[in-house]
């Protein structure tokens, strides 16, 4: 059974007082297996973020369904949505979304505190993750005191600490310089190698080339997909670039 199954997802935004409606997703279907590292690519307006928001239960689809571990997320009552998000999903955002009133440490602990975990267990988990993501030395600092790369790694730590079923990353390297981006992508690879499922939305080829599989979305549908297989990162990078060129110049994919 796939970990995540997206079936014929459709989303239409309608202006509140009649008017025009915009079709963000037409018909999106794909599956993600446990332990996969998947990137979704597409241009601005292609529907990537809408897709991610629906999977994240932050938005509701107009049609189709999303199954996590075979369970339709639409069937989760509204009251339990927050708990569901906390326990099953980890989020990493482009603008980090760290709270400036919390130290890095408290930012990472936030989901666990909301889940009423004991202090000892929280600290044990924090220690492991902080070491792995090389942020042990900045735990006491506040977000405004650390670099962008450190902020994003703190955000990854916050996503990981609940031991979620899947990490959802929305353009995670969008606000980082190339060096920090490289560090972050290595972190993602590392956690993926330890068995963590990752779904990343991006339009950076560099970011996508680290993934095991890349889905291309265009005009609200999955247009094409690539597997990395045994390719090196650089070779995969080249392959993605070629595919993007074909998509943008209007040629048909060879799926």
């Amino acid at each position, binding site marked *: 059974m796939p970990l995540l199954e997206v079936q014929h997802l459709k989303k239409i935004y309608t202006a509140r007082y009649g008017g025009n409606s915009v079709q963000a997703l037409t018909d999106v279907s794909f599956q993600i297996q446990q332990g996969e590292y998947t990137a979704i690519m597409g241009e601005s307006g292609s529907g990537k973020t809408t897709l991610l928001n629906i999977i*994240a239960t*932050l938005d509701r689809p107009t049609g189709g369904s999303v199954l996590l571990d075979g369970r339709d997320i639409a069937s989760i009552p509204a*009251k339990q*949505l*927050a*708990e569901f*998000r*906390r*326990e099953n999903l980890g*989020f990493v*955002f482009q603008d980090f*979304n*760290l*709270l*400036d*009133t*919390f130290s890095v440490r*408290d930012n990472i*602990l*936030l*989901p666990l*505190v*909301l*889940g*009423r975990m004991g*202090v000892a267990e*929280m600290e044990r988990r924090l220690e492991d993750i902080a070491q792995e993501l090389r942020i042990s030395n900045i735990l006491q600092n*506040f*977000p*405004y005191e650390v670099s962008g790369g450190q902020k994003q790694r703190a955000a990854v730590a*916050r996503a990981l600490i*609940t031991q979620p079923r899947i990490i959802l990353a929305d353009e995670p390297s969008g606000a980082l310089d190339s060096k920090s981006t490289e560090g972050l992508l290595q972190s993602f690879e590392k956690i993926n190698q330890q068995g963590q499922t990752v779904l990343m939305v991006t339009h950076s080829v560099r970011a996508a080339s680290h993934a095991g599989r890349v889905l291309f979305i265009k005009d609200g549908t999955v247009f094409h997909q690539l597997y990395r297989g045994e390719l090196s990162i650089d070779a995969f990078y080249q392959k993605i670039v070629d595919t993007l060129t074909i998509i943008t110049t209007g040629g048909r994919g060879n799926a």
Partner: protein
Amino acid sequence: MRNILFYPKLAISGMRRNKIIYVPYLLAASLMVMLFYLLVSMSYIVNGAKIAGGGSISIILSMSAVVCSFITILILFYLNSFVMKQRSQEMGLYSVLGMSRGNLSLLLLFETLFSLVGSLICGIAAGAVFSQLMYLLLLNITRLPVSLDMTLPVDSLLTTGLLFSVGWGIVYLKNVLLLFRKDPISILLSTAAGEREPKSRWLTALVGIVTLTAGYAIAVSVQTPSMALLVFLPATMLVIIATYCIFSALSILILKALRKNKRFYYKPENFIGVSSMIYRMKQNAIGLANICILASAVLVTISSCVCLYVGEEDVIKRRFVRNYSVEVYYTPETPNLPAVLPEYIGEVAARYDLSVGDPLLSSRRTSYTQKDGSTIQTLSSPGNCTLLYCLASELSAYTGEVYTLAPDEVITYGNLFFDGEQITIDGKAFTVKKNIPKGSEKALSYIKDTQAPNFPILFFNSPETIFEIDAENSNYLVCTYSFDIDQEHPNAQQFKSILREELLEEVSHLMSITTESDTRDSFYIVYGGLLFVGLFFVALFLLATVLIIYYKQITEGYEDKRRFRIMQQVGMSDREVRSTIQKQVLMVFSFPILIALIHICFAFPALVKIMSLFAMYNIPLFLFCIAISALTFILFYVAVYFITARTYYRIVKMPEF
């Protein structure tokens, strides 16, 4: 093509877009216009009506109007700083789009003009509607004879217009100055930067604790009313300083200590609350301290005004055991005045078919002295001991016990002397034949009946003996003749006026004629006037309090918006967000009022002493007034809390796009 309506239109659309800020702003400004207009027009109307006793009310009203105008301008400034803070983003955007500072000043000018004109029109219209009602209320609580005439005093219109034009003019100048000093574009860009965590300021916290302790200690340890009056202002100042320190430093120290306690801190209920309260306190310390001080001021003002007004009858009952009291003074040249006065008054009363009931004659002189053991030296200004000289014969007549004294013997009252003590006054020797200790029942009732001040008393054998003491400076005695006249009698009113006329003509050395009814009238005028004005100030203070709370919440709502969005993404439910908000808003709300109530508790002993200066000794009544005022204030507060929390929640939940 230049459109001359461009700026006015832009100003109006800007205000409309920001109605969440501007509606309360303009409402508050209109209310302030109304309050000020009412005060000024009341003073004009009362002055114009030429009512007896209206003069003092007119003075109270116009003095209050001056104070009111200062407070009003302060509030305007305060409001404006909130409004401009919210609009700085927009100003920055206009600036990026190519508007010069001159253009922006022009835009602000139109906004200011619209605000001014709008609030003046609304405020004065409301003021005109309410002024007759207020006039009635004023006449009612001061019990002045009603003479209602519909007038719209042009003078007060002009005064109000002038004050608010000047006020808003200053506010506008300040805004323009700010516009030229700070680059609007930099304001636009600066908001993204994270705010630093507040430092622990141990020194400020220490100053707060010390000043608070000192202020409270002074207030609690006050012994006498005059002392209370003297130290009340310094004590208040200390407590005000302490309030600012506590809110700005101590609160943060306490919150940080809470954060250190892991078991307490890492609970969902406390986690977000404590950490964001640290920031809230940093930004709001001054505002909250202001609310606290305003709340204290409101409570003290209204409860003492109400207490004095409600307790008037009480005071009058205490003051007038008998409803008439005539005071004369007599000297060695007119020694038989105390004998003549009752006879004369009795004659006048008989003429009007009235009888003098329960008469009481008492003579006394107050003497400032320096007391050193048994040696007493009279002074011309207060020394270490103030004494009363009275007549033993009058005490005998009152108590029925016969005291016979030789010229060198005295009976004393109070704890300064003892039986058989040999004392000298200005070198002249006296023997204390008997000392009546303080608190003796008969002596107390004598003092109460004769309205003597609460000083130690020396009773002498005759007026002559008293005249001889310090004879060069004060060879006189004050004689008070008090009696009852049946007030229900048809001739009572006539008797009152005739007695005054005849006594003025016939009796030399007349000092005063006080009647219960005259005193009651003047009490109602003064305390009623004070109450009326007090109500105005309370309205103004409340307005300020509500506005501070409202704008604080709005400002924070915008700041918390991003924070709560993140929390929802991390896994906080809508309900948790709502309860967190409510908890924080409630904490912010209850903090100032709680501290204000503690302030009042500590100020209470001193306040009681000060009230006694106004002859108000009814402590339960005062306590009741404070309790009722506090309760009303808290109810009002809770209402504002619910409204504010709703607005805050609406802002936090507002969609991003």
